[in-house]
């Protein structure tokens, strides 16, 4: 009887280690990191920046910012947040949403400025040539139309309860690492990834579906 039991335990331990690694020492440290950053701890800032920089870049790409500029704007976003903290203007640090909002603001601001300059200059210099989507138009509004949202939610409601729960845990803005999601729903990380991938695929077709004429 021993052998049968040892096996699952070993797996469990290994997954604990994996999850601890991938979430950088536990979810609890998230709040602690934010607290230390609010107190001006530079290493805490570095850790948070390393964790969320890519998310900020992706959010800018979604709004049509070129990737090189997206990196620059994301850097500037972090610099501003640190500055605000040093001036005592930051009461709480909710990441990544605060950084994403700040970055969207910077992108919109820049797009407005560029448009003003372009209107004063030649037509060829219109920034839209580099921006598939005008960030100033999309920064303040949601990226989803109502129809898309209801289609996506209808699709979501057809998924299994656990798939829905996994999707909401992974994507609700808290950026819960997959290992943490797995721990909460009692499935392996691999299975969670699989399920997320399936839900993504379904939602993608729901979102990209042409609105009925």
């Amino acid at each position, binding site marked *: *009887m021993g*052998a*049968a*039991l040892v*096996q*699952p*335990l070993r*797996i*469990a*331990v290994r*997954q*604990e280690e994996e*999850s601890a690694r991938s979430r950088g020492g536990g979810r609890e440290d998230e709040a602690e990191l934010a607290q230390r950053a609010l107190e001006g701890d530079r290493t805490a800032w570095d850790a948070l920046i390393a964790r969320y920089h*890519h*998310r900020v870049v*992706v*959010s800018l*790409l*979604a709004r*049509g910012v*070129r*990737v*090189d500029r997206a990196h620059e704007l994301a850097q500037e976003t972090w610099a501003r947040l640190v500055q605000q903290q040093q001036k005592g203007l930051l009461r709480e640090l909710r990441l990544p949403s605060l950084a994403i909002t700040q970055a969207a603001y910077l992108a919109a601001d820049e797009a407005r400025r560029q448009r003003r300059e372009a209107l004063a200059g030649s037509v060829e210099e219109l920034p839209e040539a580099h921006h*598939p*989507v005008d960030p100033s138009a999309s920064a303040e509004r*949601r*990226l*989803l139309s109502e129809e*898309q*949202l209801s289609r*996506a*939610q209808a699709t*979501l409601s057809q998924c*299994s*309860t*656990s798939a*829905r*729960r996994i*999707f*909401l845990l*992974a*994507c*609700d*803005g808290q950026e819960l690492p997959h290992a943490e999601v*797995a*721990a909460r729903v*009692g*499935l*392996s990380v*691999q*299975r969670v990834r699989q399920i997320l991938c399936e839900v*993504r695929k379904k*939602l*993608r077709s729901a*979102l*990209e579906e042409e609105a009925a004429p």
Partner: protein
Amino acid sequence: MNQRHIHPAEAELYVLGEMEPEAAAALEAHTLECAPCAAVLQREALLEEQLREVAQATVPEPQPQVLRPARWSRPARAAVGVLLAAAAAVALVLLRPEQADPSPPQNDFPILALPESLPEEPLRLVACPDLSSQEACAAQAFARGLMVQYPQGVGEVPRYDGHAGLPPGVLEADGPYSL
């Protein structure tokens, strides 16, 4: 143009942050020189942001509660917990396959891992009468796609889904539900 065009699957990997740094840098560099690929990447990023909006706009439903005895938080007792877990789950399912009466559970009933949907007919039990036959049962349950949750983590091993005749309201309970 220093690279072949970007496949949507690669753009997805990039957006999810699952790409090796060199590959990600090459992909980024390519999008600066190739407008169609920049559009592919933007579309992927947009989808990712939209998924988050969907999630944030969706009110999470009440979650099934996983009831864990307090002792599970003590790693030293994990092994004991597993033994009890297996034994209790087996006993519970064996004894009360379709009993609706919520009589007090065994001391250490380890987990209420709720099935995604309640079975239409009473669960055909993957019977594990004792721990010595667990391995065989495990294989059988695995074939049926069942999983088991262990106290200190989760393994790719079968779960004896204890469909224990829960009283109505348990699934909607806000907190741990006392049986």
